[in-house]
């Protein structure tokens, strides 16, 4: 079995330690560990984190292999320090049967760059009319526990109620894309000062907040847990905070882009800034950061949404919504949360590994960096500064809002069960 010694890294940002990987397991942690028979990585000044877990990734396969495949998407994940990703169900065909989720699961196994846990659709074809066979997807080889119609909201209150109740039988969770459809017809960007000037259809905060309010109350009523995808407004934060204070079993995620970017960027009419939910205001950004820091928002999830060039190289209204995020997520979190003093690296490990693994029940992921645990690890150089260059992305798509922007930090190594998937910033 191969051994690797990571020497002198600050584990979760704490004291410098040596971490010895033996095979697929962390064999030993401590200081002055012997490097006998081991490949050594000198990691002084670097941060060692548990492998990151993304609860919200669009891998696009099957159906849109022109924008991403399971292979290219997991390579992007490894580049970004992820060891597990949850693949959203809005593929073509939709992942609403055991067959499709097993296909995605198998492709993930074959890729070898990170674990792929398929998410199952809540309703057949994401159409909100009929429950998909949730039990069959759970019992399939893919073992689905997270269900979401992401991209679309389960807006029918009865359908949502039933889904919340039904998945209790096998400990599943429904992840809601909170978007009241009638309030967002023709929506192109956040509704507010900027949309008024630009003449772009508004996506009001209340369209998200009203659904979240309804769903936390539904979850309370039927005694289920509910997860809120890509929470984006200050008002949503208040509702989730209130729900948690009542003891409602709700978890929530925020994307890196909602922690950094605002709707002011839309003034350029450049569709790289077009995303759903839309970029909001400075006030929202600040509220989201604070909520992630105080635990109201549980996790960071990328909503990595690859699109081919032509779907962004056009006028705003014709452009697709979404941005890639796997390869920049940690840097954005470092800039917005760590360098602002809102979160330490242990907090980052919690929001980007421990908690998402817990919510999605990703076995072997989000574990402590200690002896006997699976060696899913991410090594970060926090001192690095560099401009984002999409040409260097492992993702098949380049639709990043950060092109040319200087972001801090760089993932240098990623280990998936002891095997290096990323070495010195290069895919292995």
């Amino acid at each position: 079995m191969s051994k690797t010694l990571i020497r002198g890294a600050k584990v979760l940002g704490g004291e410098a330690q040596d971490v010895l990987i033996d095979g697929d397991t962390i064999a030993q942690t401590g200081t002055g560990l012997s490097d006998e028979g081991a490949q050594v990585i000198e990691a002084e000044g670097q941060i060692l984190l548990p492998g990151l877990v993304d609860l919200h990734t669009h891998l696009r396969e099957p159906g849109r292999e022109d924008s991403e495949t399971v292979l290219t998407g997991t390579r992007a994940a490894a580049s970004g320090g992820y060891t597990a990703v949850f693949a959203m169900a809005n593929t073509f065909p939709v992942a609403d049967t055991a067959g499709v989720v097993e296909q995605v699961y198998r492709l993930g196994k074959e890729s070898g760059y990170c674990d792929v846990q398929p998410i199952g659709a809540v309703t057949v074809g994401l159409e909100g009319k009929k429950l998909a066979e949730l039990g069959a997807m759970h019992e399939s080889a893919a073992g689905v526990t997270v269900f979401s119609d992401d991209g679309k909201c389960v807006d029918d209150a009865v359908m949502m109620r039933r889904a919340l109740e039904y998945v209790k039988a096998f400990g599943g969770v429904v992840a809601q894309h909170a978007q009241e459809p009638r309030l967002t017809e023709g929506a192109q960007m956040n509704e507010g000062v900027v949309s008024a000037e630009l003449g772009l259809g508004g996506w009001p905060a209340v369209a998200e907040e009203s659904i979240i309010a309804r769903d936390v109350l539904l979850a309370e009523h039927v005694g289920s847990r509910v997860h809120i995808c890509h929470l984006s407004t200050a008002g949503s934060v208040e509702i989730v905070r209130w729900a948690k204070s009542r003891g409602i079993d709700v978890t929530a995620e925020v994307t890196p882009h909602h922690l950094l970017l605002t709707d002011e960027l839309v003034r350029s009419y450049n569709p790289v800034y077009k995303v759903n939910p839309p970029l909001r205001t400075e006030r929202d950004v600040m509220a989201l950061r604070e909520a992630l820091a105080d635990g109201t928002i549980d996790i960071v999830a990328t909503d990595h949404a690859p699109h081919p060039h032509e779907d962004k190289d056009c006028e705003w209204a014709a452009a697709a919504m979404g941005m890639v995020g796997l390869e920049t997520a940690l840097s954005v979190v470092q800039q917005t949360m760590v360098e602002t003093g809102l979160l330490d690296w242990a907090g980052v490990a919690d929001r980007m590994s421990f908690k998402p693994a817990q919510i999605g029940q990703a076995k072997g992921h989000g574990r402590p960096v200690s002896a006997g645990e699976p060696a899913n690890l991410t090594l970060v150089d926090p001192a690095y500064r560099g401009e984002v260059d999409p040409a260097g992305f492992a993702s098949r798509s380049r639709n990043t809002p950060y092109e040319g922007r200087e972001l801090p930090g760089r993932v240098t190594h990623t280990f998936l069960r002891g095997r290096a998937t990323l070495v010195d910033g290069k895919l292995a």
Partner: protein
Amino acid sequence: MMRHLISAADLTRDEAVLILDTAEEMARVADRPIKKLPALRGRTVCNLFFEDSTRTRISFEAAEKRLSADVINFAAKGSSVSKGESLKDTAQTLEAMGVDAVVIRHGASGAPYRLANSGWIDAPVINAGDGTHQHPTQALLDAFTMRRRLVGRDAGIGQDLAGRRITIVGDVLHSRVARSNVDLLHTLGAEVTLVAPPTLVPVGVETWPCEVSYDLDSTLTKSDAVMMLRVQRERMNAAFFPTEREYSRRYGLDGERMAKMPEHAIVMHPGPMVRGMEITAEVADSDRCTVIEQVANGVSIRMAVLYLLLGGNESDAPTTRTEEK
């Protein structure tokens, strides 16, 4: 002078006044037996219209022809656009054919901005109306009409609209005309009040340099010009207001309301009017209504914009006024 004309908000006071003054000179061409200047001889202007608009397209075409430009009209219907060609490919195709300027009308807000700023083409871009964003030449022709009527044709030269009180009534939410006018009129020193039912005012309007009122009658008495916006009947079905009749009663301009306006005040409309909806026939056909003048002024304004953006030869400039007189 700027390279493109995308938004009325991009114009400084002096640039706007220069366009209005140049338009006055262009207007004199229309009074000549031969309504033509050689200023853009040998230059090709493409009218790229992705949205149906006979009026605006014809107005631009008349302006281009009076400046002796070669004109290419491109309508999206029945073109390669209907076969899925992108805006980028369409624009690059046209530029490859040697187009010197592009006049674009597009249903998507921001499409002209993208065309001008994405590095797709080099030619100057003139926005002829984009979605619910901007329609700068409309705002310019409206300002031109106001200046002529409220300040005077000759007295207006070099002047702005400082202190004039302009009321814009109707579907502000969906109106690029309203947005452009608020920006330009503010730049020219006018005081703008928007009047509409609250459903037809955008969220976020509070940062606009204007007042907002839901009551038409109280603003009429304090208006030097009242601009009525077209209200599309389909808005009714989206619950913006209960019925056409209720809209007319509350926000339509009829003779009785017009009588409340100061004697010198004018009634404007960007056209096409929906008679019986936002404006009665009595008002539309009255002497105070400038609709037809606005159409004529539109040609002069568009000539001025094309002339200034494309930098017509000095020697080809409109002949001096003294000579004409």
